[in-house]
């Protein structure tokens, strides 16, 4: 490896060849202000805020996009550079709404933060300001083009990571705007509602639909029995809202907080994760027997379901018919649980706390309404929204004691916990499949070969001579690679797990956005690993680690569902998909 030697702000640096000026400066503690830069997306070099001076060049050079060269003498700070950066940030502010105090990203907005740090205290150049209609057509992702600073991170994540290509810059010059094709509302686009655009947006040009008011109202309605469920990935990230350590899970405190907020029953989506494994493994066995519709592809991720409906309708028969764990739990809450508690399902209000914004859309799908016309899930909150609610209520999350979920929809195995990590569904399924196929007890419960932090994994699992070809993909560009292999018949897979979000649910579009001053960006593999680690730790600490051994599940089948794949199971726990328009272009 060749090393490059240069001088930055009077200090000698030596870094590996190919590193940028920004990387080199970071290594010696010269933090060049930056905005459009995102370490896990392609380099745009458009905001010019990270410009520095290099001896021998008349113009300022962007630190993010300029490779360090031997002998460069670099200044990252000077009166002229500071004025330049200040003026650039002011130019953005001059074309930006002035409602910071009421903005969702107030206090965690990269633009606001830069403006503060660079000392934009007066407006020198203010004039015309762009005006766009707020796009709230979509139930998951809302778009406020007036807040857009045209850094293109959303365009980049939507194409480079997700392969959806729903967004592009339209028009040009000061008219430039990021939008779906034809300036269509998000709802009429190929948007799969994964919400990754929200996570990477430095401002609030993309945000989720806020459903907290709806939930407050339900909680305060004496006639409503408000049930809440929390997804596996919530417990690994919610602590970030109070700057608590990573790699740790906060299950007990979350349960306490939810009770304090006034929820009548606090359930765990992990429970239905276990149930999903029961139904899905049964479905897989059936398909393996008949040889039809193989490989089977998991159906937990609603972003992925939107993707397959828009982009790969030809593969819909391959998708497992199982509802997602959230929808299974909501359905059971208004059937099994209602019956058990002698409640009218209409009086039960189900709130789901999810790391995901696509879940908000999933809850509104007509397939997820009861035959009597009410939705099984009434409201979906993201992790971020739950943090707001807890803070709004005046609860000091850090000091909470740890509580347990309510029964019966709160008991889960470790297999259910790891659903939040990429490969987790696969691993959970393999634990159950192994025992079902062999009839023997499995010794090694960890299938590290399917833990796909890097986005894509293929493996052949030898289940006592039965070879099962599996693949795990997260991030839809990775999924495309597998799906193309399936279509071409290049490789015969049996089971494929696909999660829309890179890293799986722990990095979902509804997860906390690390504080701007931390310089930890969503998509950071290290962040993903830490959140995953929290889930693996829970799993390892549990004695109950296999879905099919979850006693609450066994009781559920005994009391209500009969057996996996039974008629009633099909009626309540399975769903259908259909091709959606506009059709996506892969």
């Amino acid at each position, binding site marked *: 490896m060749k090393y490059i030697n240069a001088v930055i702000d009077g200090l000698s640096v030596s870094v590996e060849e190919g590193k940028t000026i920004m990387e080199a400066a970071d290594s010696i503690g010269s933090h060049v202000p930056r905005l459009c830069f995102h370490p896990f997306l392609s380099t745009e070099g458009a905001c010019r805020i990270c410009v520095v001076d290099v001896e021998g060049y008349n113009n300022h050079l962007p630190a993010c996009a300029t490779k360090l060269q031997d002998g460069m003498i670099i200044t990252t700070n000077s009166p002229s550079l500071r004025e330049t950066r200040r003026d650039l940030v002011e130019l953005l502010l001059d074309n930006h709404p002035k409602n910071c105090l009421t903005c969702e990203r107030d206090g965690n907005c990269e633009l606001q933060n830069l403006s503060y740090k660079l000392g934009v205290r007066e407006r020198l150049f203010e004039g015309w300001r762009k005006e766009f209609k707020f796009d709230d057509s979509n139930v998951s992702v809302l778009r406020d083009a007036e807040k857009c600073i045209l850094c293109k991170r959303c365009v980049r994540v939507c194409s480079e990571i997700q392969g959806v290509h729903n967004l592009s810059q339209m*028009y*040009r010059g000061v008219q430039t705007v990021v939008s779906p*094709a034809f300036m269509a509302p998000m709802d009429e686009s190929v948007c799969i509602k994964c919400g990754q655009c929200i996570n990477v947006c430095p401002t609030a040009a993309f945000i989720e639909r806020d459903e907290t008011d709806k939930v407050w109202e339900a909680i305060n309605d004496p006639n409503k029995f408000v049930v809440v469920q929390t997804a596996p990935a919530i417990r690994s990230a919610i602590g970030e809202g109070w700057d608590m350590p990573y790699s740790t899970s906060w299950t007990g405190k979350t349960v306490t907080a939810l009770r304090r907020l006034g929820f009548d029953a606090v359930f765990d989506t992990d429970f239905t994760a276990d149930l999903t494994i029961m139904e899905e493994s049964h479905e897989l066995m059936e398909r393996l027997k008949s040889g039809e519709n193989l490989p089977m592809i998991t159906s937990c991720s609603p972003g992925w379901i939107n993707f397959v409906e828009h982009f790969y309708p030809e593969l819909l028969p391959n998708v497992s018919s199982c509802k997602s764990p959230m929808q299974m739990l909501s359905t059971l809450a208004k059937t099994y649980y209602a019956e058990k508690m002698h409640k009218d399902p209409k009086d039960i209000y189900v709130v789901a706390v999810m790391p995901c914004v696509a879940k908000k859309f999933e809850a509104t799908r007509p397939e997820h309404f009861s035959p009597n016309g009410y939705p099984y899930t009434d409201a979906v909150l993201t992790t971020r929204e739950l943090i707001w609610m807890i803070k709004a209520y005046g609860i000091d999350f850090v000091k909470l004691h740890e509580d347990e979920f309510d029964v019966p929809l709160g008991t889960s195995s470790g297999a259910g916990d790891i659903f939040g990590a990429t490969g987790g569904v696969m691993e959970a399924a393999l634990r159950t499949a192994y025992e079902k196929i062999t009839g023997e007890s499995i010794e090694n419960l960890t299938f590290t070969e399917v833990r796909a932090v890097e986005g894509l994994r293929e493996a052949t699992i030898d289940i006592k001579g039965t070879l099962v070809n599996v693949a795990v993909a997260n991030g839809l560009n990775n999924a495309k690679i597998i799906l193309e292999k399936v279509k071409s018949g290049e490789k015969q897979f049996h089971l494929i797990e696909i999660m829309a979000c890179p890293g799986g649910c722990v990095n979902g579009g509804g997860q906390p956005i690390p504080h701007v001053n931390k310089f930890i960006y969503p998509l950071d593999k290290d962040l993903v690993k830490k959140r995953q680690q929290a889930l693996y730790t829970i799993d390892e600490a549990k004695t109950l680690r296999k879905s099919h051994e979850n006693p609450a599940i066994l009781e559920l089948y005994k009391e209500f569902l009969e057996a996996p794949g039974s008629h009633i199971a099909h009626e309540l726990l399975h769903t259908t998909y259909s091709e959606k328009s506009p*059709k996506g272009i892969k």
Partner: protein
Amino acid sequence: MCTNKKYTLSDEIVDYINECLSKEHPESYLIAILHKVQGIYGFLSEIHLDEVAHLLQVPTANVYGVATFYHYFRLKPRGQFAISVCMGTACFVKGADSVLTSFKSELGIDMGETTSDGLFSLEGTRCIGVCALAPVVTINDRVYSNVVSQQVSQILNEIKAAERV
């Protein structure tokens, strides 16, 4: 390929796109295809852009991003006679703005608009490279040189008269 589906685009264009698909870097022909579509239909409609996107397998958002980036492309139909007043430097210096004002007041429309009878539309254009004969105005393919604002009503009347015949 997409031959079993019915397209509103003409066969000529569908064939052309299929021809592009057989070449290296088919997506690079997008702009050429849009030129052809506009050449035939006068503008780029959403349905046509959508069909181009699917035929060429370029994401629709990208197709629209390209169509809106380049000022040569029109997203709305224009009049039977498209009047373009050159706003290049030479024309500007020689009084193109007063010619434009005359067209606006004669036609009662603003830039980018079409008269209610669909006969005329008015647009400004970038330099067409006939600077030495400034100011110039093009109406469809015909170039009028050394135009002065007093001539505007005469030019329009001639076209209207020819149209009546």
